[in-house]
């Protein structure tokens, strides 16, 4: 039997990559603020690895829209960047990958393990009690 079923998300017209991500950030902040009986969230501290594809300007843009009328309204977003770090699988040298450069600067081998740079998490929030 042949049939096509349509599952349509097109009603969310403004939705783009960073919107669900920003909603997730707000949800995490509100949950932790509620547990601490906060009256207001003043600052959010977000850790973002260099290899993460999230765009902080877009997050900031959506943040101002979706945080409105919550206790996180007007909270400042702080992004702490973590540089990428690779470890060569041949000589175990750790190095920072330069643009498009995937070769170990020590021994010239390709093939590396990612040690850091993929982080993307809420580290802390500042609240008024």
């Amino acid at each position, binding site marked *: *039997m*042949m*049939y*096509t*079923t*349509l*599952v*349509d*998300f*097109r*009603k*969310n*017209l*403004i*939705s*783009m*990559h960073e919107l*669900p*991500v920003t909603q*997730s*950030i707000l*949800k*995490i*902040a509100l949950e*932790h*603020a509620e547990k*601490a009986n*906060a009256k207001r969230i*003043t600052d959010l501290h*977000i850790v973002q690895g260099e*290899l*993460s*594809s*999230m765009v902080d300007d877009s997050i900031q843009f959506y943040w101002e829209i979706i945080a409105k009328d919550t206790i996180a309204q007007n909270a400042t977003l702080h992004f702490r960047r973590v540089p990428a770090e690779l470890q060569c*699988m041949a000589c175990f040298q750790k190095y920072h990958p330069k643009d*498009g450069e*995937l*070769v170990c600067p020590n021994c010239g081998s*390709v*093939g*590396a393990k*990612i040690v850091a740079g993929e982080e*993307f*998490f*809420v*580290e*802390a*929030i*500042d*609240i*008024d*009690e």
Partner: protein
Amino acid sequence: MTERIPVVENILSANDRLAEENRARINAAGVFSINLMASPGAGKTSIIEQTLPRLKDKLCVAVIDGDIATSLDADRASSAGAQASIQINTGGECHLDAVMLHGALNQLDLTKFDLLIVENVGNLVCPAEFRLGTHKSVLIASVPEGDDKPYKYPGMYRGVDALVINKIDLLPYVPFKMDFFQRGVEALNPGVVTLPLSCRTGEGLDAWINWILQNVKR
């Protein structure tokens, strides 16, 4: 008084939790599932069209298609012989996420199938960040895209379980250095299964079909 509350919570953890739920549902039904990712025009739908007739007598296959709009791809999968074909329209979203797959799985009686193919939105950046819960991630590269793609889209190349190189029939006509391409792949994803093929001539498709059948048996 202002106070700092430690949080340390992964921002994509809600997606990851739902992806685990999707995986549990797929596992409970005994289905093997793959997430097909590629840039637009690399041949995701073409490979599905070539795959379905070759599996016709062996496996019962469901296809879930992600696109920003239209049901063109799901219609092509239906015509090629998918026993069920579901189109997700993401409404501008550049990738599928676990929530969308969850919604589509609700439309399927998974117990009727052996294989689930999820065709992600054509994009070489975003789909890599959002886990769906499928068993294997497959990236379809294609020769006319150019040999520099592993270097330009490392996030996509490093996370996949198998790499198809489509349109190898065009190798004589385009400046694609296979050595340079594979060096980039090897740097990001050492030892990844690589399947060069052509959907147009059929060359290499047997190896791809065998890769699927071996995984379904497990």
